[in-house]
């Protein structure tokens, strides 16, 4: 009997660990694929940007769910991730997700990017007001500065439309927490300039 119980613990523990490991592995593979797509599309984005600037008829088409839409770099915490369109389970497993219905980072309005605290934003507790954030999207390359950090209950209002250019990064809070975290960390950044060169890797 004791052996059977031990075997049940062993197998269920192994299955759980396999599931978790598999999820992380799939996420890493998807993130790699997204980065390859992003790098491969560098020339294409440059052409699109130039064409949009010429025609002034830009920012029309919405990106497909799961498509890489931006690059997010936070030098202080060595974060360099490709942002995926969407905030569902699969998108957030692959990388930080851009909330559909919000603008791209760099456009006028509030651009919202979210990620899991146990993966891509796992060092967000080290960020402070004044730290620098860099983004690259079809709206251009931008340099941002963090202007506020808030912690709100997960069911409380957290996101607001803005008429000026804003970047909002969200993740769960507390960062070190077992189970479903009860709060959300809301980091808000404002643009301080455009970048003309390619973003250097933070890693």
């Amino acid at each position: 009997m004791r052996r059977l119980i031990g075997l049940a613990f062993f197998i269920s523990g192994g299955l759980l660990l396999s599931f978790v490991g598999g999820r992380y592995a799939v996420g890493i593979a998807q993130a790699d694929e997204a980065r390859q797509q992003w790098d491969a599309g560098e020339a294409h984005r440059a052409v699109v940007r130039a064409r949009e600037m010429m025609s002034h008829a830009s920012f029309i088409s919405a990106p497909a769910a799961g498509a890489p839409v931006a690059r997010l770099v936070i030098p202080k915490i060595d974060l360099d991730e490709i942002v995926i369109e969407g905030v569902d389970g699969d998108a957030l497993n692959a990388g930080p997700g851009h909330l559909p219905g919000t603008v791209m980072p760099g456009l006028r309005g509030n651009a919202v990017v979210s990620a899991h605290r146990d993966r891509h934003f796992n060092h967000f507790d080290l960020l402070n007001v004044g730290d620098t954030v860099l983004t690259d999207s079809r709206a251009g390359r931008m340099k941002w500065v963090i202007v506020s950090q808030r912690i709100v209950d997960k069911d409380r209002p957290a996101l607001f439309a803005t008429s000026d250019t804003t970047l909002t990064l969200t993740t769960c809070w507390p960062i070190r927490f077992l189970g479903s975290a009860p709060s959300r960390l809301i980091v808000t950044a404002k643009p301080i300039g455009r970048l003309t060169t390619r973003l250097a890797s933070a890693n």
Partner: protein
Amino acid sequence: MSYRYLLALALAAGIASEASAQFTTFIPPQNKAADSVKTAVAVQQRAVADSIQRVQLTNMKTWVDSAAGSVAAPAPTRADSLMGSPPDSLTRSQVATDTAPTLKNGARAPETASDLPLLALLGAMGLAIGTVMLAGTKLGRDRA
């Protein structure tokens, strides 16, 4: 009519037809209106580029508070709005397509809670307990 006169006439006719461009081409004066449009566009583009280089952030406190959602966002100034704004000629109707922002004030933050760390811990504990129990069983059997 002498043959010289005829020869001169023939030469004049032949040269004139060969070099007709010199006699018939009319080069109109440059279009003043077009030039002024080009100049205006160039000046405007230079002005936009220059103003992006010297962006000024005005009314900082209200600007920061608006980002936190505590007060209504101020109307963007010319300098502020240059940061990342679409081109001036891009009208609202052009933007208002399928990418028009639909974020509502007071929306909840996306569901980023993850149970994977807890599941990993539970899995590791199950594995450890199972290993200990199986090892204990084997040890007891060996003793017996």
